[in-house]
């Protein structure tokens, strides 16, 4: 409880000295620091140590960099390729589309805006367990399955959706779009709401067209939230596992077309019980995602306070 005393003391003194502005931010971020130290840093260091060990029940031995060397294999390559491809494609699907839809929904002329908002969001509320069952039936290979029925309308023969790499990826993207578009619309909307209408009215006075208003006012003002959505999409893309697990009914996908990096961690760590190797994959994944996000955030000038 030393911290408490110290803080209380500091807060009192700090306030009196008029420099509570120096202390306050630290109080605000304190919950994070505590939680980070206890629930993330400590377990993560443990996982890091495990990645250099062969962890077997009742026996632990040091194996140095063996696990990291073992990463150069076909399966990890497939997992990395799938996760990266999925992440890239979801970026194209889950940023521009919800942004434009949110702008439409926010427009004054939009009828039943609230209803559509809810309708597009509701899929996100469904648990993945259930969504997986439903989509497995939609993408079934029988003639009667929904997706194939749609193909028949266009005169295309039935497809085996979950057997080929590109069709399997398509199914994953449909599932991702179905679940996330509504959430992202919500994010963009909450930011759009705080753009004063006067801005648009002023621009209209100046004779700016719809497109121009969108590009000149909306997009720049949405920047902070766009950065946020891009970041969580990248993270969500690399962390994707449950969707593919459910789509292939918990079984390994044929020829690893649905294997993702987290899926690979799960497989190695919990299905083959190579806990050390699983940790090594995890640490590698952390490195990859960190690199990608820091790169993206630096490019978008995230670390500077926007004025």
């Amino acid at each position, binding site marked *: 409880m030393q911290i408490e005393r110290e803080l209380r003391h500091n*807060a009192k003194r700090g306030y009196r000295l008029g420099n509570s502005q120096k202390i306050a931010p630290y109080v605000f971020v304190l919950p994070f620091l505590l939680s980070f130290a206890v629930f993330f840093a400590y377990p993560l260091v443990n996982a890091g140590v495990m990645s250099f060990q062969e962890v077997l*029940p009742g026996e632990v031995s040091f194996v140095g960099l063996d696990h990291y060397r073992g990463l150069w294999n076909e399966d990890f390559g497939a997992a990395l390729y799938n996760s990266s491809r999925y992440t890239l494609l979801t970026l194209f699907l889950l940023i521009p589309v919800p942004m434009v839809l949110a702008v439409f929904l926010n427009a004054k002329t939009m009828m039943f805006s609230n209803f559509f908002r809810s309708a597009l969001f509701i899929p996100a509320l469904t648990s993945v367990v259930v969504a997986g069952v439903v989509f497995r039936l939609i993408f079934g290979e029988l003639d009667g399955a929904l997706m194939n029925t749609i193909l028949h309308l266009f005169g295309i023969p039935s497809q085996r959706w979950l057997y080929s790499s590109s069709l399997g990826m398509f199914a994953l993207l449909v599932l991702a779009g179905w679940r996330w578009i509504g959430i992202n619309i919500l994010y963009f909307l909450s930011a759009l709401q705080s753009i004063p209408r006067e801005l648009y009215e002023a621009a209209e006075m100046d004779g700016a067209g719809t497109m121009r208003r969108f590009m000149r006012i909306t997009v720049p003002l949405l920047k902070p939230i766009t950065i946020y959505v891009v970041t969580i999409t990248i993270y969500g893309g690399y962390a994707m596992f449950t969707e593919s697990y459910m789509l292939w009914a918990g079984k390994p996908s044929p020829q690893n077309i649905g294997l993702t990096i987290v899926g690979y961690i799960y497989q190695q760590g919990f299905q083959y019980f190579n806990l050390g190797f699983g940790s090594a994959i995890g640490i590698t994944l952390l490195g990859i995602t960190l690199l990608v996000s820091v790169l993206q955030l630096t490019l978008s000038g995230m670390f500077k306070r926007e004025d």
Partner: protein
Amino acid sequence: MKKAFLCTTALLLILVMGLSGCGGNGNTETSPSNPPASNGGTKAEGGETEPAGGEAQKVVFWTFVDAHQKFYESMAASWNESHPDKAIELEATTIPYDDMHTKLLVALQSGVGAPDLVDIEQSKFPNFMKGTPQLVSLNDMLEPELGNIVKSRVEIYSKDNTYYGIDYHVGATVMYYNKEMLDQAGINPDDIKTWADFETAGKQMLEKTGKPMITFEGNGNWSWWPAISQQGSDQVDTDGKVTVDTPVNVKTMEFFQKLVKEGVAAVAPGAGHDTEEYFGYMDSGSAASVFMPFWFMNRFTDHIPDLKGKVIIRPMPAWEEGGNRSAGMGGTATSITNQAKNPEDIKEFLAYAKLSKEGNLQIWKQLGFDPIRTDVWSDPAMKESNKFTDYFGTDIFDTLISIKDEIAPVHIREKSPEVFDAIRNKAIPEIFIDMKEPAKVLKDVQASLK
């Protein structure tokens, strides 16, 4: 000024409260809101679990099959009736398949939180044999019974001559023929002795009805594995070496691929035989037969209702005259973990449920499995009417007795889970979906598993 102070303390209070974990201090076994009851869903024993004699011993059991939970609950109830002095109070929980094994691994690895008694599925079992097994040896109770049971069903779950688990069933693979379709094509199933006969019959089926005679899994192990097991081959040998590309294995794969090319066999929709799509496919009479282990019966009774009374069970075709006509496939062991407080008492209960005659009769009656104790197979109780005899007829165990000695043991070793996965997702789809050359595919898989 005061406000700053108040806000800070309030925040810290909340933090401190959160971190002190009110509600879980000390006794984590059961929280007060949660009186220890055997499963809330079944009203099997209200107050009877606590016999007048004294304290019933609590036994925590995990499984991934709801029906297994019910089976053990009923066995616990009858055990308590006949052994009031050793009464147990079973606390059973069903957890999804993968997750239960993950949870068990985490608990055994940490030395805390494992159940006393647990179901471990066959293909997961080798994982628990790595390092120092965290399970209890069952030798002292098993050895006297080895003569009465199908021995391979406990050998699968052993390491260095120590037995760690007992299976529910033999998992004898049998043919499920759609009698109605065979009649349409004029085929007598009892004339099919070998796979060559089967191919001939299949061509006749295709000619007469335009439908495939049989289905194979396109992303699973239940078609190829029993077929090589019939011929005494396997995916790993006794020493745990990978033997995926032996000549017998390649030849078998080539034959099955040929059947697919001829149209005699179809690749099962939904990639495997245990999928929703496949149930619908069979239900509508789209293929005339399938071979699957004995435990596949309840898929027919529960998910393929329209074929009731039309399906008959027969031995598999042999690869040569007098060859094996079955294989033991799949299975789930019940084991006792080293975190159990009184393993000796739990062992007695486990022996009662899995090795005794009455236990084995119940395994058939409640679960519809082929029990590992073969002397109950000829018991009149096996012909009593239940949902299985109603669906398949009463000659189920006659078929089983005829193939009793034709079930070769399978090898499950540490490498097995990886081998199974490689076969399931690489070899089988490449051979049956992409129609690649089996010899080459199996050779590549063999090389990748080195």
